[in-house]
Structure formats: C-alpha cells, structure tokens
C-alpha cells in the first residue's frame, strides 16, 4: 500500500480551476519532488494532501486512510475537525515562510504540539525536542526566540518542529524560496539527511540540484495537471514533453 494515493484530485478557487485531476502515488520511503511554474497548482496540491485545502473532486488517501473525508454510500462526507486534526498529526509540513510561533522559544516551538496534541509528558518531550534541535544543528539555539534566528535557522527549527510529531510523511512547500542564497544549503542538508533516513517526503521546490541528487522521482505540474514524471536522471536529461523541456530550459 502506497503512503499517498491521489486520484483525480480537483480543486476550484471560485471559478478558477486550479487542479484538474491530479493522480499521484508515493511509496513509503520515497522522495518525490514536484516542479512547475508558479500558478501551476503544485502548492495547492500539497496543501490538499493534509486537508489545509478542501478538494472538490477525486480522493486522497494517506497511509491507507481517506484524508479529511468519510465515505458514506459512495459519497465523500467531510470529517469532524477533531478527526482531521488527528490525521494531520501524522503528516509534517514545512512552509515557505517558516511560520514559527514567535512568542515561543525554538524548543517551545518544537515541544508544543507533542505535549498539547499527543499528550506527551513534558520531560520526555523536552528531551526529544533537544535531540531534534541537535539533529538539525541547532542544539545551542534551544532557548532563543525565532526573531533572533536567521531564516535558515528558523526553517531548520520548523523542520524539527514537524519531526517532533513523528510523522509518517513530510510535506515541504518551497522550503528554501524565502531564504538568502547563502542559507539555502543548510536547510537542504537537513532535508537530505532526512531522506537518507528513509522518510517519505513530497517536496515542492525549484532546487534542481536537490531534485537530481536526493529525489527518487521528479514530477512536473502545469496548469493543474501532472505532465511528466520520472526518475531525476531521465527527467532532467531526456524530458519527453515539450512543456517540460521549455520549463527545464528556463530554470537551468
């Protein structure tokens, strides 16, 4: 059973048809990079995967469970908020703008959800939190507030925060796009380490180097559809679709 199964996902923003039937399977331990021009629907698709956006058609299952909906007499019925929240707790998400909680220290950011959502006791959450901060190379920044950290450091705290929930799947929404160029490397390094540990990851990014070296599969989205997918080695060297060739030549 794949970790993520998306079938014919449709999404409208009012009259704008942003997702026109997206199909994507992601296996356990697989790293998938989604590429595409802005407005192609890649971020929206990622947000549908953890039900931050409701879908208007198709179905998404994560870890074998229908995401955000219940099936009743062949219809999809929206699930109770509490149950959606429980499903989201299994999926880590890293945002373009970090979205750290500014009124909490780095460590407090990391332990908040394990304590409040998972009911972990404070002491073990603190120990695990420090461990995760050390893992992303920020052990000494545990008691520092987000505004005292650089963008790259904030994004690494955000990764630690998501990992603290022991997710089965990690979603990355352009994790390096808001960073100064010199800070991109440290975030990619943390992500690469995560991939090597076997985490299932779906990454929306423009970092072709990361896609080539870390991803198992690259996917190109255009106008709300998946146009082409394949192993990075082929995807980047022998693209089939003319739109893919055009996109790759514009970013390489």
């Amino acid at each position, binding site marked *: 059973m794949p970790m993520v199964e998306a079938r014919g996902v449709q999404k409208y923003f009012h009259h704008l048809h942003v997702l026109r039937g997206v199909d994507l399977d992601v296996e356990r331990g697989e790293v998938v990079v989604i590429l595409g021009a802005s407005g192609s629907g890649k971020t929206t698709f990622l947000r549908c995967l*953890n039900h931050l956006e409701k879908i208007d058609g198709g179905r998404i299952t994560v870890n074998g469970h229908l995401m955000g909906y219940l099936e009743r007499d062949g219809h999809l019925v929206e699930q109770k908020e509490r149950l959606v929240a429980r499903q989201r707790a299994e999926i880590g998400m890293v*945002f373009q703008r970090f*979205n*750290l909680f*500014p009124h909490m220290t780095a460590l407090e950011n990391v332990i*908040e*959800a394990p304590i*409040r*959502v998972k009911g972990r006791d404070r002491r073990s959450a603190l120990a695990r939190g420090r461990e995760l901060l050390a893992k992303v190379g920020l052990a000494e920044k545990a008691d520092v507030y987000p505004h005292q950290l650089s963008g790259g450091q904030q994004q690494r705290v955000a990764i630690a925060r998501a990992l603290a929930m022991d997710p089965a799947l990690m979603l990355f929404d352009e994790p390096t796009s808001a960073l100064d160029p010199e800070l991109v490397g440290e975030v990619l390094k943390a992500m690469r380490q995560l991939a090597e540990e076997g985490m299932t990851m779906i990454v929306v990014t423009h970092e072709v180097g990361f896609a080539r070296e870390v991803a198992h599969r690259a996917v190109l989205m255009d106008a709300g559809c998946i146009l082409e997918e394949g192993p990075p080695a082929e995807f980047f060297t022998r693209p089939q679709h003319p739109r893919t060739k055009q996109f790759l030549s514009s970013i390489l």
Partner: protein
Amino acid sequence: MSTIVRPAPSDRDPSAELRGPVVERDTWFYLNIALSLVAALVVAGLLYSLVNPGPLYRFWFRTFHHDLPFDIPYFRHFFTLPQVWSGVRLTFILAILAQTTGIVLGLLAALMRTSRIAVFRAVSTLYIWVFRGTPVLLQIIIVSDGISILLLSMDPDLSGAGWVSHLAILIGSNAFAAGYLALSLNEGAYMSEIVRAGIVSIDRGQMEAAKALGMTYPLAMRRIVLPQALKVIIPPTGNEFISMLKTTSLVSVAGLQELTLVSEQTFAHSFKVLEVLVAAGVFYLAMTTVLTVVQAQIERRLGERRADVRRNPFENLRRLFLGSADLRHAAPAALPPKEAR
C-alpha cells in the same frame, strides 16, 4: 581588471575604530532646560502668591473682593469625608468589575464574530450594533428602570418567589447591579472589536502551522493566536479601562452613591461647588493614573521576552509624562479613537 582586496577591520588601525563621532547636545536640549525652569518658577510663584502676603497677593485680594473664590481649607476637608471615600471605593470596584466582565464578553463576541457558524456571527453583529449604537447613559436608564418595569408587569405584586421577581428586585432596587450590567454589556461591544482587531492582525500562517501540527481550532486559538494577539489588544484595553472609570459617573442617574453623586450631594449642602468638583477630579485623576501605571507595567512584562528591555521602574513614569522618542517602546499603532459615547 584585478580584484581589490580591502583590509579586514581587525587589520586596520584599532585606535581609528575607537574614535567614533562625537555626539553634541544641540540647542534644543538647552532651550528645553531653560524653558522648563522658567515655567516651574512661574507656577510656583503663582501658587505661593495665592496663600502668602505680597504684592501679587494684594492684587488677588482686590480682584476677588477680600475673599478667594477657592476655599483651600474646605478643599482639604473634602478628602477626609467618609462618604467621599466610600464613593471612590464604589467607583473603583464598579469600574474593575464592569471592565473585567466587558473583556470576557468582548472575547466571546469576537470569537463568535470570527466563527464559522452563521448564527453566532449574526448574534454577535447584532449585539455590537445595538450596544455601540446607543448612548451608554440610555442603556443605564433602560437597565435600571426599564427592566424592572418590564419584570414587574410580568409579576405585578412581586408575590411569586420565582426568578422573575428575584431578578426584578435585584436589578430594580440595586443601582450597583443595574450599573454593572449596563456598563458590562456596553463595554463588551467595544472590547469585541478590539479583540477582533487583535485576532485578525495575526498572520494566517500561524493558524495553518498550528493546524498542520494536528491542533484543533480552539487549541490553536488559545495557545497560538490569542497569546500573540494580546500585544495588540492590551494598549487599547488600557484606554478602555480608563474610559470606564470615568463612565461610571453616569450610574449616578440610577442613584448609585459613587464619587460624582456624592460630590453633587456634598456641594448641595456646602455650596462649595468648585472646591468639591476639583477635588473629585483629583480623585478621578489619581485612579486613572494608577491604571495607566498598571497598563505600562503589563506592556513591559509582555515585551520583556526581548532581551533589550530596560528594567528601570522610573522609566515608566518618565514615559507616562514625557512620552518616549524611542521607537522600540512605542505602543503598537492605536485603533482609531472611538467616537464620543
């Protein structure tokens, strides 16, 4: 073209680093000191001339026909009257109770106004519309008189021991309860808009990040959004508190023996109108000053997470009277001033 390598700061002459620009005090600094001294001397001289014989004293003496229009001994006497102190106590307690309840009501109304349930939004909008759109004086009279009339018509002889007559007796016969109810309801409408402004000022990404971590809406609101909104909510709430302290004077129409009514009753006996009202003003000013200092302390606490906060307690007083040119301590952009009630 060849690359130019500049010496790193540590390679440069260290003494050059130490010679920073010299900050000179400008003309305004000395002008301010001089003008302040002159102003202090003029005020002190005027006060002195009012009580001590001299040429200016003789001028006042002639102008006011041998008797000053302001009876200083009586002014002092006012501060010793027990009914005045009980009026002060009543004013203070009423203001604190009504404001606290108003904050709770406002929080509720704001959460309802941002709710996904349409009926909640409608109820909250209606509540704010009514209580912000009518004079608070009218609301006090309606609550103290109108409701007891209404309840009495439901239970004319007050015979029943039911909740209707209990409520009628409580509100109708108790000016404090009526004033408390009316002021709280009115304040809740204003506070809800302040709280709502605080909530919407928080970036949507905060709620999304909380949800992505598996938090439910109420949990994310309580742990993530509201604590951050507090910084925006506190300064205008301080304003509201001060405003409430003064608005309690309107409950005198319901017969509550608070500071203003006590003052009116006092000068009705003694005819020392100016002395009594100025003294009452001093009481109000003292109470609002206490609230201002408390507010400044709370704001400082909230800002204390930042490492660079000054811990000098006199700093608050200085800022209170002189303002602050230091933008780090400037209050967040205030809401537009609320219209006269």
